[in-house]
């Protein structure tokens, strides 16, 4: 056990207990998901066309709230410390690791992501956000003795990375209070995986298929 591991574990334990204790059992960062469906067809139905046979792509994550903080302020080494004080990369959510579940193969930055469940992280550098798709499994509840899966991004290592790709950063004309992952600009051939928080929107394109 290194000191870093212990510190990370302690921080995670504190975050967990605080999340559970806060607000009468309601987590301070409620769970959320965004989903999209591709490859289906509209067939005539009695109430109008019904969409059938589609395959799901889903992202599940914890949804932290801005609550008046300067989320992405700071510069140099202090950049990103508000949203990610003490993990190697940002979990891009809250509590449990952010997960991407796809029923179809996806191509991101030239790499194929086979159907399956993955964890998603963001390496936060000022003006450069890198999306990471990793084979690290996610813990469902924080368990410091579980070395085979991650809680959030604590103890993340890059050896299980499948994809790393630079995200397109854009500024929104409004401030989103609760972190949101969304599928945007979707067509049958692909779309974008986007994260929005405060006035920052970061996205990566993906194609359906390998």
């Amino acid at each position: 056990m290194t000191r870093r591991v212990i510190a990370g574990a302690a921080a995670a334990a504190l975050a967990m207990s605080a999340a559970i204790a806060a607000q009468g059992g309601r987590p301070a960062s409620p769970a959320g998901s965004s989903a999209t469906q591709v490859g289906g067809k509209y067939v005539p139905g009695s109430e109008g066309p019904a969409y059938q046979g589609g395959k799901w792509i889903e992202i599940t994550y914890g949804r932290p709230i801005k609550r008046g903080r300067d989320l992405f302020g700071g510069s140099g080494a202090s950049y990103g410390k508000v949203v990610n004080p003490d993990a190697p990369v940002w979990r891009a959510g809250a509590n449990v690791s952010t997960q991407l579940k796809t029923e179809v193969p996806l191509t991101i930055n030239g790499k194929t992501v086979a159907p399956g469940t993955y964890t998603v992280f963001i390496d936060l550098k000022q003006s450069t956000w890198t999306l990471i798709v990793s084979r690290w499994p996610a813990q469902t509840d924080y368990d410091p003795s579980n070395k085979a899966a991650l809680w959030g991004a604590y103890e993340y290592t890059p050896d299980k990375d499948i994809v790393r790709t630079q995200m397109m950063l854009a500024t929104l004309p409004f401030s989103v209070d609760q972190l949101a992952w969304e599928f945007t600009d979707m067509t049958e051939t692909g779309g974008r995986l986007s994260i929005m928080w405060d006035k920052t929107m970061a996205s990566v394109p993906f194609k359906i298929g390998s």
Partner: protein
Amino acid sequence: MTRILFATCAAVLAMTVFVVGQENRPLSPNGTAAAQVMGKYVKPEGRGAPALGGANYQGGKWIEITYGRPLKRGRDLWGSGANYGKDALVGTPIWRAGANVSTRLKTEVPLVINGKTLAPGEYSLFIDLKENNWTFVVSNWAAAPRYDPNNKEALWGSYFYTPDKDVLRAPMKLETLPHSIEQLTWGFVDMSDSGGAMAISWGTQMASVPFRIGT
């Protein structure tokens, strides 16, 4: 009566499609948007910088919207002219602004919207859809947890909505987004401790209504 029967049939059919779709996964998954106000950051003992996740935010009051999240799936969502909003309404008098169960607003604090006070409690939300003119409707109509044609005390979605239980109506600000949101989303935007706006986004359309905290 014919209209009621027709609407009932439509609702039953909608339910059937909903349940059988995609191996029991709802075609329009559930969603929630939440904001918290009036709390304080309390510096934790024995630790430095406040952690993320609201670990140190205490005493806040929740405002929450729960709703079904339909997918665009390549459709023209709104139409135009005489057909404007027709696909979203599926024969109902007003849009449920979501999918399946009625969209609900739950607030632990009083809110002021368009000059009217909304006491802490739970309400149903609807949107009156007119081309270039969306009206946000907060109603005392209860929401039925599942479709039940015998339940006359609560609504499923916006079927059989009537305006007599309206608490307030407010014009929405319509904006065009630079990207297309695939799955309908409600969110709180431009929040401060004195208020913010509730915003619905779907496709490239965003519509929002400002609110203040307090009476």
